[in-house]
């Protein structure tokens, strides 16, 4: 890094201010540190991926990294672990269960939250600020608070062990975040458009679904991705309300595979990879919206 001070020419200054605010360039040390970090971050996942294709004997008697320099080991790679995880260890069923929980928990709250966010943004009413601040406060409340009382209520209703018990709970837990993200986004929409709609005689209902809802799609997508990943990856709520068994999602399924270590790491890693593949695809495909949701101030308790 050069720290020599020169009075920059007018042209340089203009370029620096308008084009590149950070003229510091990566030296070899920066590159080396970043490379090391990236390798460190990737290695555990690569190990998982490779091990999931190895045979029981191979994975128990040699490290997965040996595969990288023994081409002969490549021919013994197999998909058996995946077949066994899906058919023999319930992971196939668990994958479907995860969808059955995550899809309703993701899509049903969106409209409900959007209506509330619309009211908080574009309508004047008594107690609006207090009601919204309550939502902000609820953001950081850990969902642990709901588990003991809801377990009793669900028990009385005979709902324990059902998908609805879990996705309803996730709708409740995600609602404050949804309202918060959507309201903050709607507050940035041009007020003039909404006002001119009002002058043209549009009702709130029409303004909402013809104007505000379509304009809020990026924020709706941010929340949806957040909620989907959160629900798909949740273990605690699923353990408490569904528990192991016929209706278990992949996160619970994976904890059983951990218990079957006698069968070796190869099966565990295949199961692990199955549980990760959906969120990773969603994440990579929609990373942009995810980042936007995060920078919009997504704090979740």
């Amino acid at each position, binding site marked *: 890094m050069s720290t020599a001070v020169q009075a920059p020419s007018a042209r340089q200054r203009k370029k*620096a*201010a308008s084009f590149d605010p950070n003229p510091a360039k990566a030296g070899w040390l920066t*590159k080396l540190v970043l490379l090391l970090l990236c390798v460190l971050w990737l290695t555990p996942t690569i190990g998982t991926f490779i091990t999931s294709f190895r045979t029981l004997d191979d994975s128990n008697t040699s490290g997965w990294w040996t595969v990288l320099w023994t081409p002969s080991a490549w021919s013994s790679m197999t998909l058996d672990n995946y077949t066994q995880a899906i058919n023999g260890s319930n992971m196939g069923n668990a994958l479907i269960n995860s969808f059955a929980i995550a899809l309703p928990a993701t899509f049903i709250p969106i409209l409900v939250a959007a209506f509330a966010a619309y009211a908080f943004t574009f309508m004047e009413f008594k107690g609006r600020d207090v009601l919204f601040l309550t939502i902000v406060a609820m953001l950081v409340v850990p969902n642990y608070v709901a588990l003991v009382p809801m377990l009793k209520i669900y028990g009385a209703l005979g709902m324990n062990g059902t998908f609805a018990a879990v996705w309803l709970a996730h709708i409740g837990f995600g609602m404050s975040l949804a309202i918060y993200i959507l309201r903050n986004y709607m507050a940035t929409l041009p007020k003039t458009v909404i006002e001119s709609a009002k002058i043209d005689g549009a009702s*709130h209902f029409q303004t909402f679904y013809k104007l505000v809802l379509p304009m809020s799609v990026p924020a709706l997508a941010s929340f949806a991705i957040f909620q989907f990943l959160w629900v798909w990856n949740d273990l605690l709520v699923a353990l408490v309300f569904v528990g192991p068994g016929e209706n278990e999602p992949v996160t619970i399924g994976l904890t059983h595979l*951990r218990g079957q270590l006698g069968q070796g790491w190869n099966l565990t890693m295949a199961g*692990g990879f199955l549980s*990760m593949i959906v969120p990773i695809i969603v994440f990579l495909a929609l990373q942009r919206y995810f*980042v936007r949701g995060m920078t919009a*101030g997504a704090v979740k308790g």
Partner: protein
Amino acid sequence: MLLEKFGVAVLTVLAGIGAALLLFWLLNKLAELMPSKWEERIKPFFYILPAYLAVIIYLIYPAIQTVVDSFRDSTSTTFVGFENYSRLLASSGFRSTLFNTLLWILIVPAATVILGLAVAVLADRLKPQSEKLAKTIIFMPMAISMVGAATIWRFVYAAMPEGQPQIGLLNAMWTGLGGSPVAWIQQNTLHLNSLLLMVVLLWSQVGFSMVLLSAAVKGVPGDTLEAARIDGATERQIFFQVVVPQIKGTIITVFITVTISVMKIFDIVYVLTNGNFNTNVVGNEFFNQLNTNFNNGAASAIVVLLMLAVVPIMWYQVRHFKAEEANG
């Protein structure tokens, strides 16, 4: 059978959205039937009612009920006063659980912010394409569940008996350097195993911290950096005296978010040790009280302690929001 389940899930989604639409349409009609003075007054409440009901049913009511249950016995039938609390706080096991949780709170949020900021600032100097690649690699573990992350790292920490080839990466390196294999997650000298568990959370959360902080760093106005450079400030001075003060808000946001997730950390400990070898934390103890001991009273008392710890954060959050609204 599987297809049927999937079909039911899709139908549930459609029915749920349809029901919500119908509900709002009905509420809206109901409001319109009223005299217009009342219509304007009642409509906002109709719009927020369904969302608020969800929050009341799943957060506000249970929070109150949990406080009540924490003063009742294990089956929530008779009042026992502060017995749940006194019994918990008197047990040395729970005290070390609290201490371990405190260690997590002291170490993980700070480490996450520092590492995330380091990656954000360093990657900012790369060419755009390499920057994007590096960030995606660091960010990706965020998509992986804590159970998945814990399973991956359990394999890294795996130990085989001495003399056999080590299949866990850490032991392979350790024995490669001449050591004898170590069952890492059982080593609680100086809380080594707790630290190894924290590594898993760091691995998964640094990406989150990096993305937020990177956006903030890029948002620092170029002319403030320029001015500092003209005044002869070193890169180090620029970073600590110009950049850091301007991204303080984001640093605090990341710190708070990670602190909250650390306070209720459960999955990683549950999968890697289930709280054995002196690694127990509050979240795992809650689950054990609820699911293994069937002690609703103790479980509720733990949640109340957790809620008390969250109150200052909540207070800060509300104040911060108010200040931001006033500025915007």
